[in-house]
């Protein structure tokens, strides 16, 4: 059944490390492209 379920398979193949890298790079792209300003 899992073979019919590509989304779940892709999610399982991508490790937590890669998700963290993807999320960080997505926020880097946002900061760079639309000059998103983040305060502290």
């Amino acid at each position, binding site marked *: *059944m*899992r073979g*019919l*379920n590509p*989304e*779940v398979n892709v*999610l399982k193949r991508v*490790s*937590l*490390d*890669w*998700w*963290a*890298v993807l*999320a*960080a*790079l997505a*926020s*880097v792209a946002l*900061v*760079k492209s639309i*000059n*998103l*300003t*983040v*305060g*502290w």
Partner: protein
Amino acid sequence: MSEAIALQRPAVALPWRLLRLLPGVALLFAIGYLGKVTEALLRDYGKAHHLALPNIEYVLWAIVFGLIIANTVGVAQIFRPGVATYDFWLKAGIVLLGARFLLGDVLKLGRVSLALVAIELAVAIGVMTLLGRWFRLKPKLTSLLAIGSSICGVSAIIAAKGAIEADDDDATFAIAAILALGAFGLFAYPAIGHLLHMSDHAFGVWAGLAVDNTAEAAAAGAIYSDVAGKVAVLTKSTRNAMIGFVVLAYAIYWASRGQAKTVQGKAAFLWQKFPKFVLGFLFVSLLATFQVFDKVQIASLANLSRWAFLLTFAGVGLKTDFREIKRQGVRPFVVGALAELTITAITLVLVLAAAAIFSL
């Protein structure tokens, strides 16, 4: 019918999975933010009343609040999936931290760190193995504690558990011991650093070498100073990069004794265990080196990294349950504590010597 159900499942499952994370992530944010507010309140109170209060960073407050909740009322089931994301925020925060490092600095500090990491690995594995034998711990529990104390705590233990086919109980205990010792280190290391008047760089390298779990190493550094926090993360990441080699060595050892499967494809094994966020960190650092970002963008990325760490530090407190140690027995914990004390002392001498030679 069953195929239709299987095809429909992800559409429901993915949003549901993300939704399940929300309460825990909100709790991480609330505790982290409360830590930040407490730091500011105390600072303002001291200023207003002309009192010389110690500047206690939000990091420590967030951890303390988390520890109190975890060890008194406990973390309710509804929050647990979200609280477990602290590791995700840690790794994302490290990647973003790359914006504050030029690649030249990374390589310079990395070279010194790598030499110290190699010595630390040999010492930690040797000490833990000897103590495990003296105290007659189960050999695989000793292996897990040695891997946990030499490289990167929880991730290393999880990576090694499958590779050396250790029991769930041994892994649970080794994780609990490493976390409890890490929590103790958070308070002890900065105090020792201040007592010895260590520079930010030297303390950062020491925290990165001696504190086992990446989140605790980052927190110990950040409690000392912002620069020490950065250096601690870099040193700890160098240590983390060694995870594959050490786990592979243990896997080969246990396979040679017929107590674990033989590792097929060693290069693939090393790549599988390699912490990928280190690559992300180096990539963002490369972008910063080529001046892809202006000053405002670098400040924004640094702040994003701090927000991610704020969630991580709240998670560090929430996941440390001292009652787990009590449940599993004290003897292996004593072994872990003795080994940590030895490693702490040896790495301190190493760092002080390196600080004198390389002007850290």
